């Protein structure tokens, strides 16, 4: 501990960061709480001198707002689909990468590319791949050209194509595109973490398993996965955290409308709702939604930790 005589010095040295933390972290959190619990809070009215009643009105409104429930469903659906898929894929790719020598560096770089590329830019590329140009309405279809995915589909199936993201596209098609995009985008970070974990696993465990005639699948399930369990836990928890905050990827593919043409907000998420509320000068609702999101992430993380406690071997 610092000698009490010099305590003021300690505070002096700490003060720059304390001030910054207070202004940019602590105050915004407190402010969010205040706004969330001020019924119908709006900054415009607040500036005009209006006062707001303290209460749970914002939360009640958000929880009963049908669109919010739909956004929540989309968010949870994306999370539940993308986190397991991307984790399993990343594990398999990491194991494969770890077991080859030639081209490992090249492949590692290729798999890491999505991480260093802007997600909006990638979103645009993905939307071009799934796009259909022309009029896709059911009665009067007039197609100019198809994206690469539909071209491949048509090459395989003859002439069947799917309206992935354009006007009139179904919800499941939109979700499929989002899942593919989010998984692809989430892979590099997970591969990196898992590959790092794999490379620190003692090779003798595998030699021992080889002498004991262990099959490849068993080596993966009984040796590799348990030894990697701390990394897998980390990847899953951060995956869920990121998944519940999904927003920019949807903007990347569907634009600021958050849905195909003619059906805005079809793919909107909780974070999307927060943005929308802010744009509508309803800071109270936005804050309440943000706190609800926080509570969901906290609960999911706690459940995750509880489950992993039993299955993680540090």
């Amino acid at each position, binding site marked *: 501990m610092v000698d009490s005589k010099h305590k003021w010095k300690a505070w002096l040295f700490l003060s720059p960061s304390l001030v910054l933390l207070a202004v940019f972290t602590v105050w915004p959190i407190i402010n969010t709480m205040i706004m969330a619990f001020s019924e119908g809070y709006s900054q415009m009215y607040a500036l005009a001198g209006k006062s707001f009643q303290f209460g749970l009105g914002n939360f009640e409104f958000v929880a009963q707002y049908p669109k919010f429930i739909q956004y929540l469903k989309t968010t949870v659906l994306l999370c539940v689909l993308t986190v397991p898929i991307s984790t399993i894929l990343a594990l398999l790719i990491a194991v494969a990468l770890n077991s080859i020598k030639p081209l490992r560096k090249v492949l590692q770089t290729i798999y890491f590319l999505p991480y260093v590329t802007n997600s909006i830019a990638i979103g645009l590329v993905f939307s071009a791949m799934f796009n259909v140009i022309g009029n896709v309405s059911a009665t009067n279809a007039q197609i100019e050209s198809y994206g690469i995915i539909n071209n491949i589909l048509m090459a395989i199936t003859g002439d069947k194509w799917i309206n992935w993201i354009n006007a009139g596209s179904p919800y499941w098609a939109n979700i499929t595109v989002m899942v593919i995009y989010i998984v692809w985008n989430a892979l590099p970070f997970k591969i990196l973490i898992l590959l790092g974990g794999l490379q620190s696993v003692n090779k003798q465990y595998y030699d021992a398993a*080889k002498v004991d005639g262990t099959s490849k699948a068993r080596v993966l399930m009984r040796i590799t996965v348990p030894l990697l369990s701390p990394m897998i836990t980390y990847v899953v928890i951060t995956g869920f955290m990121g998944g519940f905050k999904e927003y920019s990827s949807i903007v990347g593919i569907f634009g600021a409308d958050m849905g195909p043409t003619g059906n805005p907000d079809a793919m909107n998420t909780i974070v999307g709702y927060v943005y929308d509320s802010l744009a509508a000068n309803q800071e109270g609702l936005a804050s309440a939604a943000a706190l609800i999101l926080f509570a969901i992430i906290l609960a999911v993380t706690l459940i995750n930790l509880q489950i992993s406690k039993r299955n993680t071997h540090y």
Partner: protein
Amino acid sequence: MKVVLENLTKVFPSRNKKAGGEVIAVNNFSFEIPDGKLIGLLGPSGCGKSTTLYMISGLQKPTSGKIFFGDDDITELTPENRGVGLVFQNYALYPHMTVKQNILFPLQNLKGADKLSKEVMLQRAYEAAKLVQIDELMERKPSELSGGQQQRVAIARALVKMPRVLLLDEPLSNLDARLRLQTREEIRRIQRETKITTIFVTHDQEEAMSISDMIVVMKLGVVQQIGAPQDVYDSPENLFVAKFLGTPPINVFDGTIKGGKVYIGEDAVLDAPGVEDQEVYVGVRPEGFELAEDGAFHCKLRSVEVMGRDVSIVSENACALTPVIRSIINADNKVDSSKEEVCFNLKAHKTFVFAKEKVTWSTAEEGKTLYNFNKGAQTLNAVYGAKTYELGTLLTDEDIAKLEKQAKQSLSPVAKFFVKQGKKILATAQAKVAPAVEFVQNIIPEKPALTGEITYKLAMGKNKDGETLYFAGGVDNARLCVTSDINLAVDLHAELITKNVEITKGKDTKSKTIVEGYHVYYLEGDKKVYPELNVANGENHEKRIFL
């Protein structure tokens, strides 16, 4: 199950593609291991013993040669189909499984007709655990066990599937001294009880001798001698084997055979009827000395160490390759420690004579005299300190005096080394020489001295005439010695680092040069750490001459 190795050879490709030179880890190893015996593979680090073990286990594929278990050729079989149990040096127990799960693991891998019921598996696991006396610890994780217990679990895991051959890789090296003693007896007991042919690898000669039915001494990939421990000790086939076995180590002297007698210096110590005159090494076991007033072998007495049952006489002799000679005699013999000189008779069956083979330099010009350190010649290839001497010039007394002065002032470990040897300066160099010499490769990679001040290396190069030269000294080319004599370079290297050396011989595959040198080891705590010596394909030099 007997194990037969037939011309087993393993060649590792060079790590450095530019320098070239593949490493022959195991060279033409043929041996039949009788059924149910405990065999120790023994040798310094890098001699190929672990590689041999891994080839038997199937984890490494031999470059050529064959392995048989009984009459089955298993060379091409994968490890799991060979029926071997392997215990790794650091045990490789799965950290996330309990002891029971670890032992069960190999059984759960069995498929098809071999598949066992849960009850049988458990019963077998408990049997194996009982055999190594860990049945109390079945529910613990490896991290909750001591080193010795982990070792037992590893052995149980190897034994549980009833292997045809049990392989142990340095099984005792991770245990402390007391546990080591206990565990080696345990291994012996387990082997006796199970009667499984067991092969274990060690670099500790005492360990190998104490429990093996047979030992195989290896050096640089070549088998030096195979036999019962006592036979190998009593009748070593070459100087390496003689030196490798025995504590305290054998005393080695420069000697000659003249007119049917073996001389060490002026003293005729043994009869050698019918052996032609030649230069030899004479090795005498510490217990091979017999105190005698009129003994033929004269040494300068240094001290007498009393050990109760025995006394150890420490003496000096100009012909000895080590600074002191250690002889152990029965305490009934009273030694007058005030005397200047001590005389011995040498016991013929404890004294071995080895041919001194000349080191040949394929790159040297015919007839050119190369410096021989031991003979004290004065041909000098020398450069030192601020003054640069041309290669091949003779040093004047003045130069030598200067070096001695530097040594006295503790200015230079190199100068000190030469003076301490009681020889005149031979070959040292300062940075100025280095550019004239084309660097070829490191023999011993850079390694910091124990004092940590400077990093030293031992390397090989060629000068513009194509003559092979050796470097020892700092990597910054300070304190550098350039010499055509590998012995000198290695000696210096060892001196600069720790003084711990073991003599070996080998052939450098790249330059086709025979390298007569040393194994240098570094002491890390009490543990000997051998740097990788970048020479391979050793040849049997210093063959025993049977008198």
